[in-house]
């Protein structure tokens, strides 16, 4: 985005630019909410208001659903060959690549994410994701079946129809594309509700989608307030009581990172910090419980604290910043309250534990050790830069303790021992297990939770399953030369 004085350096981004898209996107047009109400979206680095966003409510959602319904029942999108949908999606990807700085800016302003990460990793990954699914659109195969009687059968994989997508605020652009791309490839139409904490990227992406040629009504965005705690459970209940719509949920986690004696101390310390502090701890898969085997414990803890001291918290536009502010006041206060609990429950605070400065919602990277397995900070998802470290002795013990959570999103293992790697990866009940790495995402690699971390997959061909229904077609055959 070019500033009013023509400059584009990141220092000048401190001033709030003109936000182009603040209205609901329904049936190809940006419109005000029916009530005319708006809500503010804040820059968590400065607590300033960035813009006023249209506040959609039930009536607006109805309009959007209607548009999506019409686009599905009568429009061209599901009736196009997958190849043509793929072509438009590739164009969308190209437009994203041409607007990386724009999107990065919105993410940093609205969600407090580190700008250099946005421009080099986060935003480029979303055009890759779109291209992955653009290439998948003409490769959704059903099967011809082997039946045990004189019938011929095959399965048709059909688009499910209109889908509702509720997007979180921690990766506003990435999550938007993560959910929309497979839905678009499958031929569905959709209504997206971005989180109110960071709605700006979604609206900008809607603008690019239209430019790319996505037909009106296929992709609709309704911004508004969420009113929800325990969102996942409420959504499932709502779906059951309304029309039994299928639901897929990608929820929270309390993922264990397990470091064995044979680990390289440097690498392990880096992974632990990266795993628990990346994106200010606002990642569902973050390694918020770090299990360290006793043989390596003392050396590792020393390294960890040493490295944590170099973890810079500050203005996310500053290229040397590692960690920006928490997304808003509510999250900020929540994290601080958990830190407080940790102190009161008897865990040992090694580093951090306080807010960082008083401008914006910054919190110091915080490491607790001697955390009891049943303490609050070991059980609840904190969603902040807080690491809980626990010591363990044996493989069997750590498997049990790693699994002792209602969540099951991710896990990490640091070891060079083949047998330990195989044993633990097969024993941990989690949707993705990272061995000697962490936070590795790929368009081709499906991830999704076990247990109360949800169900349904994102990324990979598996992600299409949410948006497809399988229909079997069966007909008798006569005199077939083979069966």
């Amino acid at each position, binding site marked *: 985005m070019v500033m009013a004085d023509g400059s584009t350096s990141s220092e000048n981004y401190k001033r709030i630019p003109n936000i182009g898209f603040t209205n609901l996107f329904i049936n190809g047009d940006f419109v005000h909410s029916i009530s005319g109400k708006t809500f503010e979206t804040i820059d968590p680095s400065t607590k300033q208001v960035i813009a006023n966003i249209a506040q959609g409510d039930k009536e607006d959602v109805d309009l959007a659903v209607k548009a999506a319904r019409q686009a599905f029942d009568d429009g061209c999108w599901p009736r196009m060959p997958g*190849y043509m949908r*793929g072509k438009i999606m590739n164009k969308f990807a190209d437009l994203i690549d041409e607007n990386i700085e724009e999107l990065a800016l919105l993410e940093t302003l609205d969600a407090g994410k580190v700008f250099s990460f946005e421009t080099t990793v986060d935003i480029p990954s979303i055009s890759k994701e779109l291209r992955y699914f653009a*290439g998948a659109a*003409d490769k959704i195969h059903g099967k011809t079946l082997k039946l045990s009687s004189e019938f*011929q059968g095959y399965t048709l994989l059909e688009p499910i129809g209109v889908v509702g997508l509720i997007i979180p605020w921690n990766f506003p652009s990435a999550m938007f594309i993560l959910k929309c791309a497979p839905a678009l490839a499958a031929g569905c139409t959709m209504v997206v509700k971005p989180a109110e904490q960071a709605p700006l990227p979604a609206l900008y992406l809607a603008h690019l989608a239209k430019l790319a040629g996505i037909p009106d009504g296929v992709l609709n965005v309704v911004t508004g307030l969420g009113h929800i705690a325990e969102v996942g459970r409420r959504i499932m209940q709502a779906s059951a009581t309304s029309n039994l719509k299928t639901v897929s949920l990608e929820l929270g986690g309390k993922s264990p990172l397990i470091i064995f004696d044979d680990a390289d101390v440097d690498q392990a310390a880096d992974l632990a910090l990266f795993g628990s502090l990346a994106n200010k701890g606002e990642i569902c898969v973050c390694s918020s419980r770090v299990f360290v085997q006793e043989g390596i414990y003392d050396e590792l803890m020393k390294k960890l604290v040493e490295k944590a001291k170099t973890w810079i918290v500050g203005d996310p536009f500053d290229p040397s910043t590692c960690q920006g502010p928490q997304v808003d006041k509510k999250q900020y206060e929540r994290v601080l309250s958990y830190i407080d609990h940790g102190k009161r429950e008897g865990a040992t605070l090694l580093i951090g534990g306080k807010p960082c400065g008083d401008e914006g919602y910054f919190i110091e990277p915080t490491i607790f050790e001697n955390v009891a397995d049943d303490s609050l900070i070991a059980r609840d998802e904190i969603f902040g830069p807080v690491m809980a470290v626990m010591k363990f002795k044996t493989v069997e013990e750590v498997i049990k303790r790693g699994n002792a959570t209602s969540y099951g999103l991710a896990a990490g293992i640091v070891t060079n021992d083949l047998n330990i790697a*195989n*044993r633990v990866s*097969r024993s941990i009940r989690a949707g993705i297990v990272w061995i000697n790495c962490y936070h590795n995402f790929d368009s*081709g690699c499906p991830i999704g939770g076990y247990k109360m971390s949800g169900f349904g997959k994102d990324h990979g061909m598996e992600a299409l399953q949410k948006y497809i229904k399988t229909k079997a077609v069966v007909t008798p055959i*006569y005199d077939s030369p083979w069966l």
Partner: protein
Amino acid sequence: MAARRISGFISRSLSSSIASPGRTCNLRSEIQRFSTAAALQEPITPPVRKTFPAFDPRTGEVIANVAEGDAEDINRAVSAARKAFDEGPWPKMTAYERSCVLLRFADLVEKHNDELAALESWNNGKTYEQAAKSEVPMLARLFRYYAGWADKIHGLTVPADGPYHVQTLHEPIGVAGQIIPWNFPLLMFAWKVGPALACGNTIAGLPPGVLNVVSGFGPTAGAALASHMDVDKVRYSHVNPCIIIAFTGSTETGKIVQELAAKSNLKAVTLELGGKSPFIVCEDADIDKAVELAHFALFFNQGQCCCAGSRTFVHERVHEEFLEKSKARALRRTVGDPFQKGIEQGPQIDSEQFEKILRYIKSGVESNATLECGGDRFGSKGFYVQPTVFSNVKDDMLIAKDEIFGPVQSILKFKANATRYGLAAGVFTQNLDTANRLSRALRAGTVWVNCFDVFDAAIPFGGYKMSGIGREKGIYSLHNYLQVKAVVTALKNPAWL
């Protein structure tokens, strides 16, 4: 630059169907640029020892002289491909990066659509309309299809009967040798090159050495490729270099290719060979539609399709009406300069094919089939053949058994599977049970029901019986260019099995 010259040439050719040598010589140097042999890391004009002429089948005149590669050039090309595979970046690039290269290629093809179409039409004789509106766009479409596969080549994790972790890795096979026919040169290029590159292989843009093209003759260059042991004997003599050869062409040549492959290093072979595909018109068919489709099925591309519907079987109850209408349709078929708008049929590819077709027509007449129309050459220049229809054809006549590869339609009364070929079949009926029954009973790689020649990128294509081995296009084509490696690791105390 080339496009302007070619379009200038096209407008001149509209007013006269003869291209004089003077007018074509501007384009010759452009053609030279495209007729590379063994494009290695050196610039595009290698020392050319021998050349062979490329003909314009409208007149029999020479368009350009093309570098003639022989065994030595094949060696160089294979070496380059081997080097590119073993040491180069291509197989080590991420699949996503490879897919981006393939997408870029598709974009370039689209940009040069008309140039490519003009070259194809000029050298092959097919109508410019067909090349420009159907084939070249299909070339781009195929490369995009394969770009989308590059990062979706999945192996399996496999449940074992004991404590083992089992995974199958689908690895690129290495160097692929590909022999491409003349009837759909650009399309066949895409069918072969697309999947091979998507799987991470290199072929005898793109990083140097990944794709090598050697023009030449079958018995010399082609045979050399089929029997290649891989040049670097010192390093690889004890190791199977895993070249695969993919060939499209006649059944006779296919046999030779397979023999050479076996005698050399047991390289994997896929063959897309000839056909004598039946087109079956059932009693309940809409006759007008059936006539048009049957006509298209045979006469498309001057009859030069491996899967041409070259035996038209008609139910006796509708035979008379069908025949009458087919004859009328063939008589209406417009033959002439393929660059001219409105022309349906251009010349056959060269004098060899031309003579062969006329011999088959003669044999048809001599075996007492009824010549309904056509039967001779068209015009006095070039390799044009009149659209020809035979009726009262019997299964044991040569014209019913051999692949003619020309505009000669044979109409028979019902009986489908009596052929050593098995490439394709067409069924024309409204009846559900007939459609199901016939599609299962026909021993052919593709059965088209109420359509013909539908060649979408995702639809696998290949032959039964002597029409070939293996499938091209679709997900199936990937199998040709991958090797499966099973990796089995003992597990200690697995949590589940």
